[in-house]
């Protein structure tokens, strides 16, 4: 028998701090697999954001720079402008990217910065204790929407991929989920594609990953998988929103 599944080399041999059933670990693994697949580990620089994904530097066996809350695309811009031949990716949650960092993500995308951003949308601020995120669903109970999110006063859940897909600077914008094996396999392809865009100097690439947060959703990990299907995907459709064609190499 041949080994068909193993830990990617770009992930350090340490345990994640994530809660049981949290999808962050799956998404970390898919990013690491893309880095392995493209053989770019020693030329990759990761940008950690603030929130549950801050410990990126403990898990990825690459250079990593921590960014202030929401600023990962700006820090990534600085790094990439200096090292144009390196691969720079940012890994951000929804509070980080879609609230405090809205300005940075839109302008990095609009400039067509040749970076890759992985956006984890779990509809909640995880690390700070389950407060309302910009992506929190209408009616969703969080620690700061104890009566459920209402569009009156709280607004609607923000569709970041749809917003970014309008920008010419984007080479690739897709939304994926990792709540069943088929979705995980599709997410793997999309994340790989996003990194390929950067390798081919195509400009800003972006993958939004719908992710479960059983702890703050106050659900079992299995019920959280179902919530992604039943509540999230109908509002946040899984789709490639924008894809530029990589020209054939001469």
């Amino acid at each position: 028998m041949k080994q068909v599944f193993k830990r990617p080399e770009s992930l350090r041999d340490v345990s994640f701090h994530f809660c049981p059933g949290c999808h962050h670990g799956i998404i970390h693994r898919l990013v690491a697999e893309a880095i392995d697949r493209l053989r770019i580990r020693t030329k990759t620089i990761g940008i950690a954001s603030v929130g549950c994904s801050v410990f990126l530097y403990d898990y990825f066996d690459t250079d990593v720079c921590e960014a202030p809350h929401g600023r990962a695309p700006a820090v990534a811009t600085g790094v990439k402008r200096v090292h144009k031949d390196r691969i720079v990716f940012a890994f951000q949650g929804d509070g980080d990217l879609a609230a405090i960092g809205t300005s940075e993500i839109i302008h990095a995308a609009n400039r067509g910065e040749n970076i890759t951003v992985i956006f984890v949308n779990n509809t909640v601020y995880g690390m700070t204790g389950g407060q309302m995120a910009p992506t929190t669903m209408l009616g969703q109970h969080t620690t700061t929407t104890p009566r459920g999110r209402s569009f009156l006063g709280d607004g609607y859940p923000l569709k970041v991929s749809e917003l970014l897909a309008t920008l010419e600077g984007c080479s690739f914008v897709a939304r994926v989920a990792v709540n069943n094996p088929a979705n995980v396999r599709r997410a793997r392809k999309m994340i790989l594609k996003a990194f390929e865009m950067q390798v081919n100097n195509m400009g800003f690439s972006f993958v939004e990953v719908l992710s479960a947060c059983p702890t703050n959703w106050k659900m079992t990990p299995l019920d959280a998988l179902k919530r992604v299907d039943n509540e999230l995907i109908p509002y946040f459709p899984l789709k490639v929103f924008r894809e530029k064609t990589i020209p054939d190499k001469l």
Partner: protein
Amino acid sequence: MGRIQIDIERCKGCGLCVATCQKELIHIGEKINSHGYHTAQIHNKGECVGCANCAEMCPDVAIEVWR
């Protein structure tokens, strides 16, 4: 056919692998690891086809698969 190996120390007993295994070969057992989690275990090993669905879903990258 197939074989999986679960790193018990990495497992947090979330059960995503249990729900994913089409052959229903994995369960959360009585064993408790050093972190205090009941961990995933495979029974009827001979029936494993090595489809790797369990590994794809494991958030803690605790499962390796051979086929």
